[in-house]
């Protein structure tokens, strides 16, 4: 096992051999991956050193101090947060070697082809078909709300391979090549005016069987790895006091005394307290992870931040009064990265509405907390043992 001191030595060696000032960004990131300093808890040869996850902070601090380039996690969030842990857990050695390095370096962006027009919260109801044809699978169907599909090189995809099995059992998990001629990406404009997500039409897309993750028919279980990591990756970051959305409003409050009213003051303080407590809870979650005692608080953080972002950005628009009546611009853009806090208050207000929908709605997360954390009885179900093809749609 590698300890903090060894990691520091390795990091300094990397910096010596590839001085950030004179090294090309991508070359530096590749070298960092090869040195095992990308995600230290990953296996040797796959960007890591089998070290405790908590020690990543040691490496990050050294690199940040030296002004080393980072891999812009905001651009490759789906790859880092969701695709990578799934590939690591369920991919063959060859698949892991092929995908993880360009994913981490950011040369290849990933997207997530899960949701469908008829299958959102009830993801296991999906209808996109994959049919075996020799060494390939042939995929037909439609996905929707796919963030970054327009910049993605690869996708994680779940498709139905056995319509006669109950819905959770007939699903298989694949890595899909977004440059395949059968893949068509159409922008889907959202309430901010931007087209951050897309519709994706899959017509006769050929996926080699070697790009399957996990067993045939076991895709639902594989997808759990993705979904669990999705929830943890949202809200795990360490933020300073007033670091999130609340900082923007607090700054406006301090700089613009003419906007202040008693009603807004009361609400601002309510939100300030809630934001500070959410920050502390996030910090506590992090400390638990470091101590090797992860709790179920991950889903709590996503729920808390969704609500906070919404109420705080709503207050910000109100606080701005006449300016709150205006909006930056409505022109349709296809952004390269998902931006929660950027642009103006109106944008923040509208974008925050997605926080309680994307990555599992708050309602669905509350169900999960109630059943898995509190142990409350499940909802009565009528879809568990019925073949998918016989379910009413």
């Amino acid at each position: 096992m590698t300890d903090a001191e060894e990691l520091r030595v390795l990091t300094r060696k990397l910096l010596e051999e590839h001085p950030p000032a004179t090294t090309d960004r991508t070359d530096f990131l590749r070298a960092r991956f090869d040195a095992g300093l990308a995600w230290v808890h990953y296996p040797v040869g796959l960007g890591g050193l089998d070290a405790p996850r908590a020690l990543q902070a040691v490496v990050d601090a050294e690199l940040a101090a030296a002004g080393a380039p980072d891999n812009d996690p905001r651009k490759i969030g789906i790859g880092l947060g969701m695709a990578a842990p799934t590939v690591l857990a369920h991919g063959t050695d060859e698949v892991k070697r092929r995908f993880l390095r360009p994913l981490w370096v950011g040369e290849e962006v990933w997207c997530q082809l899960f949701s469908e027009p008829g299958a959102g919260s009830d993801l296991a109801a999906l209808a996109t078909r994959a049919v075996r044809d020799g060494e390939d699978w042939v995929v037909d169907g439609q996905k929707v709300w796919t963030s970054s599909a327009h910049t993605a090189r690869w996708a994680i995809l779940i498709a139905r391979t056995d319509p006669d099995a109950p819905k959770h059992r007939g699903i298989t998990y694949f890595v899909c090549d977004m440059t395949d001629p059968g893949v068509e990406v159409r922008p889907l404009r959202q309430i901010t005016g931007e087209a951050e997500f897309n519709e994706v039409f899959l017509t006769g897309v050929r996926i080699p069987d070697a790009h399957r993750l996990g067993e045939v028919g076991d895709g639902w279980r594989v997808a759990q790895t993705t979904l669990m990591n999705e929830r943890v990756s949202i809200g795990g970051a360490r933020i300073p006091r007033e670091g999130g959305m609340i900082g923007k409003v607090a700054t406006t409050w301090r700089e613009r005394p003419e906007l202040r009213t008693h009603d807004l003051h009361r609400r601002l303080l309510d939100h300030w307290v809630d934001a500070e407590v959410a920050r502390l809870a996030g910090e506590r979650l992090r400390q638990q992870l470091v101590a090797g005692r992860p709790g179920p608080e991950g889903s709590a953080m996503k729920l808390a931040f969704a609500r906070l972002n919404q109420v705080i950005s709503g207050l910000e628009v109100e606080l701005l009064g006449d300016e709150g009546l205006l909006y930056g611009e409505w022109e349709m853009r296809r952004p390269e990265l998902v931006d929660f806090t950027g642009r103006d208050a109106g944008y923040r207000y509208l974008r925050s509405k997605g926080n309680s929908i994307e990555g599992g709605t708050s309602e669905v997360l509350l169900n999960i907390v109630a059943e898995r954390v509190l142990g409350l009885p499940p909802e009565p179900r009528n879809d568990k043992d019925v073949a998918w093809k016989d379910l009413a749609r």
Partner: protein
Amino acid sequence: MTESSEPTEQPLDLLYSETEDDLRAAVRALLADRAGPQTLLGRIETDSPYVPGLWKSLAGDIGAAGLLVPEKLGGQGASHREAAVVLEELGRAVTPLPYLTSAVVATETLLALAGEGEAAAGLLAELASGRRVAVLAVPLSTAPGAEFPLAESVAGVPDAAAADVFLVPRADGLYAVPAEEATVEPQTPLDLTRPLARVTTEGGSGTRLAGPDAARTAVRRGLLAGAGLLASEQLGLAEWCLEETVRYTRERHQFNRPVGSFQALKHRMAQLWLDLVGARAAARAAADALATGSADAPLTVAVAQAYCSKVAVRAAEECVQLHGGIGMTWEHPAHLALKRAKSDQIALGSAGRHQDAIACLVGLEPPA
């Protein structure tokens, strides 16, 4: 999405240590054994809600009364973190004991005066051992930064009935007045497990512990520690409420289903759990900031109070509601929790007062 760079200041330790877990287990076992709901329900209509001998066991056998007091002054030399754990357990069981008042507020007040003379130090050792109980004679509602009465007669003094000695702030300083020399007139409290009384002492009675300036600083420090650790009592209480509600709604059937399987209820309980995750972080932060004497303690305490008092009340109200008719009965302990939660909301400064303090501390000034 991924780890951001490390902030420079040392973060608060928000976890529980093994020693704290052991202490919790000991206190919980003692309370389960001696102060269960039926015992408390039986006592609240007698002259005194305090369970005989319980204070001696907690203070003497477990050594909980002296946690804040350094060993050289006769205490356990632990910290606010451990005292907070004791309070979580006392909150869970809504225990009538003068812990917050004597082992925290009065003790912390005296700790500020330990250098001022032998009287304070001597009293401190007695409090730490649990041999005597001291109560600060200010109204329970007094916030850490607020003005407090310097009158001969003060109403709303908590746990006066259990006090052997009162710490009485007067214009010319802080006095220790033996209970025999004071008049204690019980009031009827909303929270039956934390008795209130009007305490009258004659001017000049008792021993002077400190002059006016030192007294003011000491009382504020006592109230700050009290407010900070009250958050842990509120956390424990809210935890009990949620656990009981989950347990009950899993078992109670209506419409041929456990009522806990109805989503409208599940979401409310899940939301409470979420509030508790926050309350635990806030209460731990306050305890740790007090324990380390952090300059941030006043803000951290105010945040914990502003947040935890609301959570405890919401948890207790939900507990009553989701128990249905049974929740409204005198036999069920839910009302003990509700009464404590509501009175804790006012104790040591309301949420609103703590928010005003926050506004001041972080520079979010109200409109002109």
